[in-house]
């Protein structure tokens, strides 16, 4: 059974492509796909076949069923995490300490409330962990990090401190250990 449709376009906002549809006219006929939806097309009709007779219907406008559509609209702002009874949560997340700890450096969280600790893998096997969003004395952070990570390693730890970009890279895959260290410090 072929569906037929005909919609009257009233306004098209040129800047944000918002299509403002208002149907203040007579009965609509559902009539196939509108060919050119961007221009101000008034109506579009096909020839009715014997096998597919035209089925013009009336329509009802319902505002209660719009609640199902509201669920599908995306949010634009990142929500604040809700308050839990105990920390850390099942997935291992805990909020930063308030007031912040009394250290010469400070590591901020990104907009998703997580630490910006990323791992870069190279073809052939090498890996680096990058730590960004650092404020304050980077060299002190470097020292403390090395003291935390070295006992488990059998070799010396290799780090580069990029002072201009406020970034530390550690040679190897140490994402979990670094996040654990930052949570212990209370950032």
């Amino acid at each position, binding site marked *: 059974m072929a*569906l037929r449709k005909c919609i009257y376009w009233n306004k098209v906002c040129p800047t944000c492509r918002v299509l403002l549809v208002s149907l203040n006219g007579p009965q609509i006929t559902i009539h196939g796909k509108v060919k050119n*939806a961007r221009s101000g097309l008034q109506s579009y009709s096909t020839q009715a076949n014997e096998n597919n007779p035209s089925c013009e*219907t009336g*329509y009802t406008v319902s505002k209660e069923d719009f609640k*199902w559509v509201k669920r*599908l609209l995306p949010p634009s702002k*990142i929500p604040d995490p809700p308050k839990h009874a105990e920390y850390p949560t099942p997935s291992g997340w805990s909020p930063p300490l308030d007031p912040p700890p009394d250290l010469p450096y400070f590591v901020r969280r990104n907009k998703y409330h997580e630490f910006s600790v990323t791992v870069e893998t190279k073809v052939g096997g090498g890996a680096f962990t990058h730590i960004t969003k650092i404020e304050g004395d980077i060299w002190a952070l470097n020292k403390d990090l090395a003291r935390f990570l070295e006992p488990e390693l059998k070799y010396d730890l290799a780090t580069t401190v990029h002072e201009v970009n406020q970034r530390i890279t550690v040679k190897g895959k140490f994402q979990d250990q670094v996040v654990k260290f930052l949570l212990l410090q209370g950032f």
Partner: protein
Amino acid sequence: MTESRFLNVVKKLPRVTLDNLKPNPGAVKRPANRRGHGNKGMYSQRPKRTMGQNLYNHFHERMPHYGFNRNEELKRQYLPLTLWNLQRLIDLGRINPDEPVDIAALANCRGLNFNTKDTNYYGIYLLEQGANIFQTRVNIEVQVANELAIATVEKQGGVITNTFFDRMSYLALTNPVKYFLKGDPIQKRLLPPEELVTYYTDPKVRGYLSDPAEVVKERQALADKYGYTLPDITKDSKFDMLMERKDPRQIFYGLSPGWIVNLADESVLKPDSDLYEEWAKM
């Protein structure tokens, strides 16, 4: 903390103007050495006497070919979603466990990246990583799932189903506003192809086309296998939410095919006659 020492240095240095700006060393890439082959034309595309003085073939042209990865673009692919990732999104408040979890819910919270340009993605694959820490009751709808993942979700008192979405309805779900702005009436979801019918009618995998009576038996069988007690969902406060399922021809929760969504006036247009209801369920 006091004002950063970088700002104290900038205070005393001369004014920053358009003449004083410079990129970081190593940031700007200088043009490569063309080795006497010029910039354009056929001769510049040929190898330039590197890698063992070869003049005839590039390095990657010298290897023999086998058909290992042939027709890779025709195979169906699914985006991986781990249980740990799901739990992290619920902890941070980006997913609401009081509503059924869908591809649309995951796309709206930007938990997964559905923007790939590959044309053979058909949904989500639920993986078992994080089964030891998962602790929420959810009503989740995926396309493929592991056995352990199904067991963990049901142990907590949740519900899981495997459904099939054809390519067009999958694209509609990943970006519903873009789909509604086209102005078309909502399309019907297509049934799975021959290869996948046995998968989606299988109660072991909780397929959406399977017999509900057999699904009940399989839930108990899984609980016996892994050794946990199945909680009774009927006595749960969230029973109505956990029982929400989609019709096999329905793409969005609550919106049947044939309806038109009017976003500007915040309303939905529904055809009056009964013929459309029959058509929607066919």
